[in-house]
Each structure stands twice: as structure tokens, then as C-alpha cells.
């Protein structure tokens, strides 16, 4: 399976051609994307927030559902690379297909952005890190991608924390330790990633109430104290305040949730420029200033 995904996404020399799934990309490629994104973080601070890498190229955004957050970050990234942007809005009647695509895009956004954020805050050595992912692992493509990426980067320990109904079958085989107790799961963690809880979970008899969920798994200052003193708190957004965490934590000093949004642009620029660079290799080789 990895081989076919690698063949799909990489050219004969192993350079990035398409970006569809982490599976098959390998650690070197993942690191290269993160390194390239580093180079782009400076662009957002300049007066002229553009580099000419994709000038003359057209980036088409095909969204089946309107999403301000995801679409604007893709659009900004493409524009900062000096590409022309086409937004194609397919009507919402293409329901199930559209949702899947949107989820996929959200997932790509979250995964790389999260690795990038962790790397910026904690340094490039994932081997000494303990990362805890808390929440609805079962229904989260983001979580699955994060777990895969964390393992690729040889993270020291990856914990998932949730009630049994929200942990997928044989989850340990993904390379994680499963906890049903929040304190045990986040003890001495360097990074705590909180996942969003969706209302539907109460309907499916997976959880009794948001109230009980917050009682057991909600992140408060008090509980966060069990993680390392300099632990960071992340969340793919949008946050349900009072469910996944309280406002004190969300707006507190350890939260890097806002930075995650900005980093998203740099990571997208990296992926786009790498994928497009292959097509212009025979033309001018443009350097990142």
C-alpha cells in the first residue's frame, strides 16, 4: 500500500509531485516539507508578502462546501507564491463526496501544521517528546494522520486519551498507548493535542453528555499541571469552550492554537512550491531568498 501511494505522489527521483496522503511519503520527505515551510515563515512578516516561485501558475481550489478557514489559507498560500488563484464552487448538492474532500483537506492542513508547530516550539528532536492526543480518535482523520506523522518522526511516546467508545479497534497497532484516564494520559507530556468533540457523538450512544465529557476529559489549568511545566496545548479548531477545554487554557500562555493558524499558510506554501517545482525544473531554478 505504501508503495503505490509513494508511486502516486513522488517522481522517479523521489521528489514531491502530488500531495494526497502522508502514507508512502517517508520521513525524509516529511522533514523536507517542514524545512521548506521554515523558509516561508519569514514571508508573512515582510511588507511585500510574496515570493515569485509559482508566478504564472494557476492554483484551482475545488471546494464542495464553503469553508472560510480552510479555503482562505489555501488561497493565501498560493497568492504568496505569486500564483493565480481560481476558486471553483461546486454546489452543495454533491453532498457526500464534498464532505469527504473537505475532511481530507482539513486533515492535510492539520497534520503538517501540527508537526510544524511542535517542531518550532520543541525543536526538531521528536525522539525526546511525549505527545498526548485527547478526544474523539475514532472519528478523527486528523488524529490518525497526526499519529502516523508522529511515528514517522520517531516521537518518543504517543498517547491517545479517550473513553473506549471513541478509540478505534486495535488502536495500539497504530503505534500508540491507549489511556482512558486523562491525568494518566497527559502526565509529563510535552505536547497535548485536544480534538474537537462533535454533537453527533451523543446521538450515537458514544457519550452521555458534553457535561460528563468535560468532567472526565476537559482540559483545565489544574489538569494541565500534570503535564510538563513547559508543555504546549494544541487544537485543530474550532474549539468548543467548556467541552474540550476551558477558556483559561484556550487563551492561556501554553496554548499555541493561534500560531497553528498562521503556520498553516507556510506549510501550504511549502507543499505547493515543492510539488510545482518539479514541473519547472527544466526552466528556471528559483531560489528561496
Amino acid at each position, binding site marked *: 500500500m505504501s508503495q503505490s501511494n509513494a508511486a502516486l505522489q513522488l517522481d522517479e527521483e523521489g521528489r514531491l509531485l502530488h500531495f494526497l496522503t502522508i502514507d508512502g511519503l517517508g520521513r525524509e520527505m516529511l522533514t523536507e516539507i517542514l524545512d521548506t515551510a521554515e523558509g516561508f515563515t519569514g514571508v508573512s512578516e515582510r511588507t511585500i508578502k510574496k515570493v515569485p516561485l509559482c508566478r504564472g501558475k494557476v492554483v484551482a481550489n475545488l471546494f464542495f462546501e464553503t469553508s472560510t478557514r480552510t479555503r482562505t489559507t489555501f488561497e493565501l498560500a498560493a497568492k504568496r507564491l505569486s500564483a493565480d488563484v481560481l476558486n471553483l464552487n461546486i454546489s452543495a448538492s454533491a453532498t457526500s*463526496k464534498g464532505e469527504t474532500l473537505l475532511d481530507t483537506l482539513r486533515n492535510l492542513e492539520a497534520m503538517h501544521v501540527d508537526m510544524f508547530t511542535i517542531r518550532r516550539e520543541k525543536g526538531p528532536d521528536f525522539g525526546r517528546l511525549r505527545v498526548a492526543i485527547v478526544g474523539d480518535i475514532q472519528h478523527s*482523520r486528523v488524529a490518525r494522520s497526526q499519529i502516523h506523522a508522529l511515528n514517522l518522526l520517531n516521537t518518543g511516546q504517543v498517547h491517545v486519551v479517550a473513553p473506549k467508545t471513541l478509540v478505534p*479497534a*486495535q488502536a495500539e*497497532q497504530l503505534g500508540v498507548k491507549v489511556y482512558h484516564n486523562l491525568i494518566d494520559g497527559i502526565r509529563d507530556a510535552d505536547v497535548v493535542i485536544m480534538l474537537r468533540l462533535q454533537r453527533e457523538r451523543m446521538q450515537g450512544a458514544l457519550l452521555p453528555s458534553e457535561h460528563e465529557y468535560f468532567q472526565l476529559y476537559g482540559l483545565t489549568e489544574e489538569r494541565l499541571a500534570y503535564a510538563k511545566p513547559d508543555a504546549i496545548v494544541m487544537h485543530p479548531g474550532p474549539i468548543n469552550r467548556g467541552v474540550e477545554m476551558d477558556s483559561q487554557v484556550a487563551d492561556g500562555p501554553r496554548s499555541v492554537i493561534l500560531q497553528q493558524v498562521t503556520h498553516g499558510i507556510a506549510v501550504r506554501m511549502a507543499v505547493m512550491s515543492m510539488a510545482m517545482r518539479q514541473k519547472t525544473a527544466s526552466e528556471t531554478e528559483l531560489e528561496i531568498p
Partner: protein
Amino acid sequence: MSATGPESGARIRIHGGRLVDPANRIDDILDLYVADGRVAGVGEPPAAFRADHEIDATGQVVCPGLVDLCARLREPGQEHKATIASETRAAAAGGITTLCSPPDTDPVIDTPALVQLLRERSERTGYARVVAVGALTHGLAGEHLSEMAALSRAGCVGVGNGRAPLANPLIQRRALEYAASFDLTVFVHPEDHWLANNGCAHEGAIATRLGLPGVPEAAETAAVARDLALIEQTGVRAHFCRLSTARAVRMVARAQYDGLPVSADTAIPYLHLTEMDVADFNSLCHVAPPLRTQRDRDGLRAGIAQGALAAICSDHQPHEPDAKLAPFPSTEPGISGLDTLLPLALRLARDGVMTMPEVIARLTCGPAGILGLPYGTLSAGATADVCVFDPQAGWRLTPADLHSRGHNTPFVGWELEGRVTHTLLAGRVVYTRDGHR
């Protein structure tokens, strides 16, 4: 390919072949004599027999025409996928002479008129015989009993609710009891609809990794347990359709040992493929029930070998290309199986799971017995449904080889052994492979 062979009253001699008729424990080089649509003689010709047509079966196997316990012909209701004409033609090319349609056509087979329709249309095209399992409940909605006596009189081989759930266990009990009053076999698909929870893959490490909603093993075993209790309670004769777990095989084998009138089958893909084959979101491997673990596959093979599972069916489900072109969970489940039933079954003999005559039994007298039909044998006087195939013929499956309208099969590219050269339906040649006489 030709369906215009000698007339059905013709006298045919099939000579020099290895005659394999498991029902009569025959496995020998013997000639077969056909006259007036029936088997006129085995080994020795009947008195004063002069053949109108000779089939040279030297180096081939001559066996009863295959009986397929479950094949969806998509007519009436889904003719954009396939038709009775196209699929019975494909059946003939695969050596299959009797096909059993499940009740989930559109409209559902819950009236004698539908049974009649299927029979008439298949007789008109004349490539294969089509029988039907009638609906257990009206519209397969799981609430009101269908007119089972009428369906039985119209010729249904049994009744069942397909893969549609019954509203509650009490209705299930009553439906089984009612069917038992008329000595009807109930065809049960053992899956707890709620535990299956719209899953599309086996609940396990691979589905977790891929993020696909899973169907736990318990969805099948919990249903089998409850069904066995009700079968015992009601005294109905029941058949479990398409077992997918090793555990269920053991439960059914145990029940058989205890004397319960239960039979079971599995479909050929479950004897070769596992959840690993879904690993790259290959929608051609999206089937219901899902492909499960290696251990389940081995358990199913053991069940087939030992006979707890008396039949292997194709579970033929032809689809148009669009049905398989979507994100995995949104694709329609099912494999197009008529073209590959025989060679894939023969592979079990090649893999040492059982002998070739035992494989033939699971494709002929085994399913015929479950359906209560007098086919699947070459006894003197039996209807002359015959399949002649070359067991050594090696071929690589390509889309061009598929006779079915449905090309949705993950077996394209497989190296197969065993190819049908002639098929006779009631003494009439309905298929001859190009290059053969």
C-alpha cells in the same frame, strides 16, 4: 460463443472425458450419453443409441452443470447494471446451468408474479435456469409476513429477507414459524444490522488505519447465536448465507453436530481474499459482509473442506463502473463473480484445501441439495445439465474475458487454471468455447 447447438431432443455423446459426479461418487474416464434433455447413459450407451452430435472431451473434466446459490441478475429494477439475458449468458460461459436469485430485486420478489417473470425471461433467453428465493416479509421491510405459501406454490426454493433487517426478534420468530408450517427453507443472512452500523470493512487494525467504519466479528456471531436459538425453537429448516467468520463456521458446525437442520455457504471471494486486500482502498474489494482476517479465511476453507459449509456460491453482483468510483465507503459493495466461480474454486484443489471432486460437489450437488432441486447430478434420467471444462487450461484474467456486464472484479490479473469448453442446459448446448466443436 454459440447458443444455437443441437436441438434439445438431440442425442449427444460426450466421450473420453474424466466424468466427475460427486453425487454418485463417480470419478472415472467414462462417456456420457444425452437424449431428450436427460442423461441417457453413463459409461455404456443406451440400446441402439446413435449420436447426432459428438463432443470430444479428451483431457477434460465432465461434471454436472454448476448450481450457483446466489447470483444477482439485476432484473427487474436495475437493468443499467445487467440483465437476465446478459448474466445468464455469462453463467453459461462459466459452466453454470442453475442460478438462484435472491429476493432483493426491484420490485421485490414478494408476489408470485415476480417469480413467474424471472422464470419466463430466463426461459425465453434460454442460457441458464433461474430459480428464486422469495421474500420473507412484504417489501423486505421486515414488518409484515409475505404470502409465503403463494410464493412456494409459484416455485420459490425458499424464503429470506436478504440483507435487510427484521424489525425485532419477535417478528423473526414468527416469520420462521410461519415458513416452517409449509416446510419452506429460510435463507438467513446472519448480520446484526445495528452492530454492523453501516460499516464497510472488517473492524480491526486495517480499518482503523484506513479510517473506515468497521463491521465487528460480533455482528455476525451474535446474529448466528440468536438465529440458532430461534431455529431450534421454531423447528424451521434454515440456511446461513455467506458466512465470513471462522467463529460462525464453528458455531454452525456445532449446531449441525447437535442435529439442527441448518446448512451454510460462503462465497468464493471469502476463500481467497482478506482485509489486506482492502488496504489501498480498493473498492473492488468492498463486499458485504466484509473480507476479514487470514484466520477467518482459513476457518472458512476448513468449513468448506469438512463440509459444514456445503456450498460455494459466486454471490454475483454486477455493477456499472460508477458504482465503484467513489470514496470507499460510498461505493456499492459486491463483486462480479460468474466468470470466475469455477476457476477460483478449482484453485482450492490446487492449494490442497480439498480434492477436485470435493470442489465440484460444493458447486453442484451441495447447493442443489440446499435448494431442494433435482439438479447437480449426472444420474441416469437426470436433467442433462452438463459442464465440460479443461482443468489444465491456464489463462490470465483480463476484462475482455468477462462475459458478465459487470467488470467489477478484483481478480483481473490473476493467473487462473480451468476453462469451460462446453455447457449443456437440459440437453441443449448453450455454450461452446471459440475453437471448440
